[in-house]
């Protein structure tokens, strides 16, 4: 076999030639298109990580805003999310205070209703009696905002809904505007989460700009 002789003769070539070819065996370079695929996968991973990070830092937060005019004297509930303006009403308490009412789900759906008050009115006593038309449900946190009606709208307040289950708290800002005698609330910002120690969140005070 003619080729065989050449093949056998190849076997006798210099060690240096063999060692050179063996030593210079380059690493496999990526197949065509592999680099693009790897880059695409890396970009997708990075995007996913960023989205997760943003979701973690700037969580979506939804609360319920209450307005008068529901069925059988009950308040009408509307979901209040960021960038969404929903109608709200001033409700009267037995003591004659005027309040806006909001609520959001509690960490523990079986927990008793939790209530917080944010007030701008300097002469507010700090005590809030039951609000007509609002019946507090189990597993929800209720937030009552007492505006200073001597001031012109818009009214703004910030509060810190505790989220003990995720060990963090975020600042939520709400703006209430008035147009033609009707109030509308808007969730204007939700801050990044601030880590908290477990068990501490429930002790966090509701923001009370008017309090001492």
């Amino acid at each position: 076999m003619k080729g065989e002789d050449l093949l056998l003769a190849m076997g006798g070539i210099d060690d240096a030639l063999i060692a050179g070819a063996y030593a210079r065996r380059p690493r496999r370079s990526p197949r065509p298109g592999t680099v693009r695929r790897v880059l695409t996968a890396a970009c997708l991973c990075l995007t996913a990580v960023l989205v997760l990070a943003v979701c973690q830092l700037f969580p979506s937060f939804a609360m319920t805003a209450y307005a008068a005019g529901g069925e059988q004297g009950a308040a009408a509930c509307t979901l209040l999310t960021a960038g969404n303006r929903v109608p709200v009403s001033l409700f009267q308490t037995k003591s004659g205070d005027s309040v806006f009412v909001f609520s959001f789900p509690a960490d523990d759906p079986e927990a008793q209703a939790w209530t917080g008050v944010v007030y701008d009115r300097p002469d507010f006593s700090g005590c809030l009696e039951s609000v007509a038309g609002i019946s507090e449900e189990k597993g929800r946190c209720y937030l009552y905002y007492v505006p200073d009606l001597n001031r012109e709208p818009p009214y703004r307040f910030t509060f810190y809904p505790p989220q003990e289950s995720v060990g963090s708290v975020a600042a939520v800002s709400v703006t209430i505007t008035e147009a033609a005698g009707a109030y509308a609330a808007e969730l204007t910002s939700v801050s990044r989460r601030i880590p908290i120690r477990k068990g501490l969140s429930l002790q966090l005070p509701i923001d009370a700009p008017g309090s001492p």
Partner: protein
Amino acid sequence: MDDSAIINLYWQRSEAAIAATSGKYGRYCYSIAYRILRNDQDAEECVNDTYLGAWKSIPPNRPACLSAFLGKITRNAALNRCKREAVEKRGSGEIKLVLSELEDCIPGAAGMEQWIESKALTAVLEQFLYGQPPMRRNIFIRRYWFMDSVGDIAAAYGISASKTASLLFRMRKCLKKDLEKEGIAF
């Protein structure tokens, strides 16, 4: 362990030399044998033959390049095995392809009855290879000494298989001219 220490173990007739060789060059020898034989068991046996061959030939030899020395033993053992057992009849292995490719560069001159001594042929091959740029030279050696597949070589050098094949084709043509120039004919 470096090569000189392994060679010293052979010279001391220490069986640790075999273990050291196997640890450092086992895969290398196996891959050479496997590319020729395309059979696990045959390749393993070839590697064992390599260790035995090294044991028998060191001493008196003291190879300057242990990898090439072992590679040559493995390659010869695999080719002999291939010839003896007609492994190519199993329809696999690079050897059939490599042989058919090398047929092309044997001059088809009239004086075919003369059998060229293998050493003379090797000398022309070496001269030809030393005259090539390193990359082309290494590609040729990888194809016809290590018997790597064209696809593997192409992937290793980051070039297409067709480019590798055409480069090898051009090199074979050059080699044929060199062989003709040297008056080598089969």
